């Protein structure tokens, strides 16, 4: 469903309920709203490839491991799509400005995979890397602007990491001991980002109302998503970048439909 209060500025043009306006700005200081939607795949995607655990088989061999590059629900909901505010100048809700005050984000080495597969963390927010497995893991975070970190996390142990710089693209996290394990971390300078859940849905809360913001869409397999449909209308977003202006109230983009060919 396409919410009329959302101003979609693809190619710097605002669309309101089918009318085309140009360069509209409705900044309302102190008002915050949330943005939600659901990523859906149109078409068949390849079935997840099973992974054969060839290390610590007595532990990892018990779990049904699959390649999690493309995770699609039965109804087409696409998990692990990242959507975040790319604009450098964005008014951040005062309660959320300081990442160090936010609750830690947990990345768990569990059942010989990372949970979650794609995580979102704000700069200075604590990332707690846990190991719930009875075996040792390491979490090799290949950041581009922050110092790469690669700590060994003993069984039942944990390690805290913070990032002082944001990363333009999600950083891969791998375990060198169990080479099939892979996750991604989205590290942004503000809290405005989300990763779609198993059903493809996402919510970004406390966005400033009336500010034209550039969002970016990314998926592990599809890369920057530059072609999709919102409200049934085809939208081009070069390198996954698209402008939205959020209006008052909770706004729902409805289904954001992505062609399955992107994942082949």
């Amino acid at each position, binding site marked *: 469903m396409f919410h009329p209060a959302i101003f979609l500025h693809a190619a710097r043009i605002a669309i309101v309920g089918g009318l085309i306006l140009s360069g509209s700005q409705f900044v309302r200081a102190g008002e915050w709203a949330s943005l939600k939607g659901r990523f859906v795949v149109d078409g068949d995607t390849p079935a997840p490839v099973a992974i054969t655990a060839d290390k610590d*088989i007595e532990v990892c061999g018990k779990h049904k491991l699959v390649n999690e590059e493309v995770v699609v629900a039965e109804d087409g909901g696409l998990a692990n799509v990242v959507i975040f505010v790319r604009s450098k100048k964005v008014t951040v809700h005062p309660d959320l400005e300081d990442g160090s005050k936010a609750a830690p984000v947990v990345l768990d080495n569990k059942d010989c995979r990372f949970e979650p597969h794609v995580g979102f963390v704000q700069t200075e927010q604590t990332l707690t890397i846990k190991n719930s497995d009875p075996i*040792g893991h390491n979490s090799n975070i290949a950041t581009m602007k922050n110092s790469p970190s690669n700590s060994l996390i003993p069984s039942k142990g944990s390690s805290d990491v913070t990032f002082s710089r944001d*990363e333009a693209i999600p950083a891969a996290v791998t375990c060198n001991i169990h080479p099939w394990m892979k996750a991604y971390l989205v590290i942004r300078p503000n809290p405005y980002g989300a990763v779609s859940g198993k059903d493809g849905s996402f919510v970004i809360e406390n966005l400033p109302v009336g500010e034209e913001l550039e969002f970016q869409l990314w998926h592990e397999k599809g890369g920057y998503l530059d072609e999709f449909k919102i409200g049934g209308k085809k939208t081009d977003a070069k390198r996954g970048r698209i402008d939205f202006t959020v209006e008052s109230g909770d706004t729902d983009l409805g289904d954001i439909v992505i062609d399955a060919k992107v994942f082949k």
Partner: protein
Amino acid sequence: MAKSGSVSDPAADAVAYLMQSTEGWEPKDIPASSLTGDERQALEELATLYLEGRFPAAKASDVLKNGLPEDAAIRGDEEVFIGLAAAERDEVLLNYVGKKTIGKLACYGCHDIPGFEDAKPAGAALADWGRKDPSRIAFEQVAHFVMHDLAHGKEHAHGDEAAEDAHHGAADGHSGHGPDESADHAGTTGADSLGSAELAYRADDDSVHLSPESVDPDTGYFLEKLLGHEREGFLWQKLRQPRSYDYKKVENKSYNERYRMPQFPFDAKQREAVMTFVLGLVAEPPAPEFVYNPTPREQARLDGLVVAERFNCGGCHTLQMDRWDIAYEPETLGFPNDFNDYSFLRGHFTPKQVEQSLRKDAKGRLQTSLVGMPVLDPETGKPQFVDEDGIPVEPDEEDVVLHRPVMLWKDTLVDGEPRLVGGPSLFVPEDAIQAGKHYPAKGGELARLLFPVVIEDEREINPNVKPDDAWGWLPPPLVGEGTKVQSPWLHKFLLNPHPIRPAAVLRMPKFNLQSSQAAALTDYFASVDGADYPYVYDSRLDDSSLAEAETRYPEHLEGAMRIVTNNNYCVKCHLVGDYAPPGNPKALAPQLGRVHERLRPEYVYEWIANPKRFLPYTGMPVNIPHDKPVSQDLYVGDSEQQVGGLTDLLMHFDEFAKRQFSLDSYLPPPAGEAASVGQTGPQNVASATSIQIDSRVDN
């Protein structure tokens, strides 16, 4: 020469040989290949001449007639006679004679001719001819020839006028138009090919004598030198009439043994210039102050390079990383991260280096030098381009400021701040690279070539393969090898390589190096890295040092061994003694039991602290973070003490292993216990403190 008097033209033979090569062109208007009877006879005579240089006369005749048997063990030009078929006989002989003629005339001296790449120069070496011992110069009978030539110039087949001039010159001592110039003239009219008649013995030779004083001063000078068998005289005549040295020799010299040097059309002045040059080639060593006198370390580098190039070490291994000397706009290479690691891993820069790093040039740019690896595209293996955020882009993409990601292999300063090995890659704007200079890596071509291939292979097994891991499966860069390994080990390894990294997809072959070559390579690596060699003393290797550490830290080695064998740590990946971790070999790491003979203690200590500081692409994690030691149940101490304990264990692994072993079970039991031992039998056991691999750790 055929009986009819016609001759075979060597040039035609050479043409025939050359015409058979059709690489890059198609021969047209090829003359009829069939030979006339006379031509064939001449061809066979020439072939015989060459064959007699290889075989006795009878054998040569037989080879020409019947060829060589199929199983003849023979190498060289005569191979073409193996299985000589009647149908191809003319073609084979033409090829053979043509090739031999090219060799004889040394056409390859000027022309690039396939098959003659390794042919030796036709003439004598001139590099030190200026001091060649005259007794080793073959003057032959040339003095007689010159006497005769000067005295009876008219009678020779030179141009009559020139000979006349020579005669007058000799008579009146006129130097301007003396015999020299007559020879010059002759030289340009074909006298370089003195005929057999002119070179043959003449009855009046001995009666001819000419005094050097009787000719013009220049000629007289050289004649005197010639008569005195001095270099100047030889060279003078060699340049005047090179083949005159065959004078009186043709009777007992075969056609192919005659001198071949052509007579170049020099005039007297040019001849003197050439003589001055050749006589100056005395190979005298330059004055000591101009001789490069390398330091022992530099000499070791140069000696090692010779061996490295000879055995193509750089074909697989990177010997020197890429270097970019760049000029960049301030703050365009990102920002440094806070240093949050062991203090001994901090980068070290002098205040002067920092100051230089902040000094802008006339264009307002800063300079720095980046040593490292370009980040390669895992799909293509080509250097990657990214935008300012590090997002991969195509090199021709519009509206993007192209950057090249560089993985540092040497600490450097950017904007006056340290950028350390093991940190994030630097994204270098293309304009900063263009404004500076790039020095490509030396070696490592095969590793770079295989980089995308092994990733693709691994992807079939593990779709989540991490591109950087692929470097660990390929021939490793040898940058920093000198500070990493112990010289005696490297010397032994080079002589007899053995597998070190189970994950490697290639194995180093045995090159059958001589011990001196292995030593040169070993010293090379130590010298380029500024490491001590060939003998290194490190107190950490001393037993006394170990004893002191064990006094200070109870269970020093045992605690370290508990870390090694704990299922969370080293044994997850490393081979240790007879233990091999199960699983994919790509995730296996080197044998820890041999570290004590392979690696330098200081390297091991710092490597354990943070492996990425030394090998930026390594997947080995930081097992003991500087601010979070491993469980005290394993080793009691802080992070540095635990790192020290592990280092001591690895560097004294043999000593530790000996402590676990007892000979008691092999020795005869004391009287009275024999019966009970006899019931159980001898046991080869470790001591009671044998290590259990344990995964139960509270961290």
